[in-house]
């Protein structure tokens, strides 16, 4: 697991830090325990801004590597306001993150797709309630090497030919997908089975979640995929928009054609916002309900909601319209448990889903 740590050792007060430095660690530990008790008891009345009350504690976040850049950016900013709160953000993949979340190991789970039925059951079995909060849009990007001069636009049907299960071992050349392309080896790079990006892509391109060929280079770490595609003329891969934006000098994003008359569309903020890019999807964080009243977790999520728009755009994702953030924040402040996708009808927008009572 790749974990980035934000925050300083858990010293709740400058005088405690001094105690530790002088070696009175026993006295310090006792005082820290006392302080923790005081913080825990006084947790109910922290309505002030994060800067006003110095908080402490650890917030464990894990899950999607696609959501990671946003959560990590939020954690970095949050650390500036709350130096004593330690936020760790892992990248186990959406599925890997939920496995840990529903096992009670993490407070917040990053997800690049809604929670699934199996995961809902796993959480229920452990009595873990959660609040589902959308944070930004991603345009799942299909990328190739910049030296690739034969393809600029790809249809969803072609992607399915490349990636679906029957392709395993049989579709190995570019010209098997489209006769106009060269007879070069097709080198595929994609996220592994614990990834929400993998789930989303297989569901929307191949038609069924997790149905995919298995003979491609897999990694939960999107940087490995970037390296692979950037280093191989015949490569094709897919991952979240932020990793393309970050590496746009080394890789080339393809336009995607849904094949329903929409034509070729590039992944970008504009095409996601106007709904024309076929592989756009919302990203989420799931907050454990029983941790939501911990002052440090509450402050972190409040901070997240205030800054999600700016920071998600900063790292290469697409911010929601303001009214979606207003609705998402309301969902968080009212601590509404469960997933809004349990009762979702096909074609309902995020705004409609969030507006349901």
């Amino acid at each position, binding site marked *: 697991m790749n974990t980035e740590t934000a925050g300083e050792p858990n010293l709740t007060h400058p005088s405690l830090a001094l105690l530790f430095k002088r070696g009175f660690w026993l006295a310090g530990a006792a005082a820290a325990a006392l302080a923790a008790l005081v913080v825990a008891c006084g947790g109910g009345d922290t309505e002030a801004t994060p800067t006003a009350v110095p908080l402490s504690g650890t917030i464990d976040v894990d899950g999607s590597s696609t959501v990671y850049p946003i959560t990590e950016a939020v954690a970095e900013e949050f650390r500036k306001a709350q130096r004593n709160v330690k936020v760790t953000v892992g990248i186990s993949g959406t599925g890997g993150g939920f496995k840990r979340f529903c*096992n009670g190991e993490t407070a917040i789970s990053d997800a690049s797709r809604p929670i699934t039925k199996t995961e809902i059951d796993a959480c229920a079995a452990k009595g873990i309630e959660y609040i589902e909060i959308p944070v930004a849009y991603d345009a799942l990007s299909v990328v190739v090497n910049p030296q690739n001069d034969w393809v600029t636009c790809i249809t969803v049907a072609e992607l399915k030919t490349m990636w679906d299960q029957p392709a*395993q071992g049989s579709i190995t050349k570019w010209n098997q997908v489209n006769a106009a392309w060269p007879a070069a080896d097709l080198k595929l790079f994609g996220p592994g*089975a614990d990834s929400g990006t993998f789930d989303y892509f297989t569901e929307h391109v191949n038609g069924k979640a*997790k149905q995919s*060929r*298995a003979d491609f280079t897999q990694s*939960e770490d999107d940087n490995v995929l970037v390296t692979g595609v950037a280093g191989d003329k015949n490569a094709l891969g897919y991952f979240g928009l932020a990793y393309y934006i970050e590496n746009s000098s080394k890789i080339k994003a393809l336009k995607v054609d849904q094949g329903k008359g929409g034509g070729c569309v590039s992944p970008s903020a504009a095409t996601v916002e106007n709904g024309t890019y076929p592989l756009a999807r919302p990203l989420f964080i799931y907050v454990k309900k029983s941790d939501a009243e911990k002052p440090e977790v509450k402050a972190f999520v409040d901070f997240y909601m205030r800054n999600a728009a700016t920071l998600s755009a900063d790292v290469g994702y697409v911010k929601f319209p303001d009214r979606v953030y207003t609705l998402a924040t309301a969902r968080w402040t009212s601590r509404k448990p469960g997933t809004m996708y349990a009762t979702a009808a096909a074609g309902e927008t995020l705004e409609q889903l969030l507006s349901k009572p």
Partner: protein
Amino acid sequence: MSAEAAGNAGARAAGWPSRPGRIALRRAREWPVYAFLFACAIVSIFTTLGIVLVLFEETYNFFKEISIVEFLTGTEWTPLIGEKHFGVLPLLNATFLIAILAMVIALPLGLAAAIYLSEYAHPTVRRLVKPVLEILAGIPTVIYGYFALRFISPEIVRFFFGSDVSLFNALSASIAMGVMILPLVSSLSEDAMRAVPQALREGAYAVGANRFEVATRVVVPAALSGIVAASILAISRAVGETMIVTIAAGNQPNLSWNPLEGMQAMAAFIVQVSLGDTPRGTLEYSTIFAVGMMLFLSTLVMNVFAQWLLARFREEYE
């Protein structure tokens, strides 16, 4: 009265215990040291036992669901995605292909270096060169991994085999691994050669052999058991090596003898699954133990074989 008896008398006079008593006391005082050292030794034994037990238990769980025949003879390894297949051959093949290619590089170079250091080099040169060579063994393997991915693969492998070669390929991992195990081969072989008695060399020189003949016909055969053991230890190191294959070989199970393709070695698969935080108790989780067991047995067999070779073919000299 001897001096010792006088000492005894003095000791008794001072109320000290008798001689046997003092020995017992000394033993009693030695006891904590003995116990501590014994505990240290036992910790490593129990650790090994614990690892083997855990491996066995989880492997047993795996084979309750997957037949051992399918595991050992299946040619497809797709335990995580789509239609699941549990044939370990692609991983086994990749592991040994990479290790053997690494040996193809490390063995001739390492042996030549050992012959040079043992038979040709001036003692001063040897004193300088040997530690430098051993530094290679001290480089963290993650650095070898990125060296393979960022330099060997694009600059060397593609220079010789064309720019269409995958960036992730087995050959670049093999080359890096060959360089990594080179000091193991050369250093141990050199030790074995230096242990060959000088009289053998002098005898050969006396009947007119030149330096090269002495090295290749007398010293190397005499040190052969040590050289073979060094090579097997090096292969077993290569088989178990993890970071290089994870970073540079491409995480794609692939049953192929073409080292220019991307492959997944056993150790790299274990890393991949561990990174994904697969929950305990699932079949996917058990796979890493079954593969780990395979890896463990491979290296164990080789190490035992190396020990046996050493004992069996050892040339004993005065």
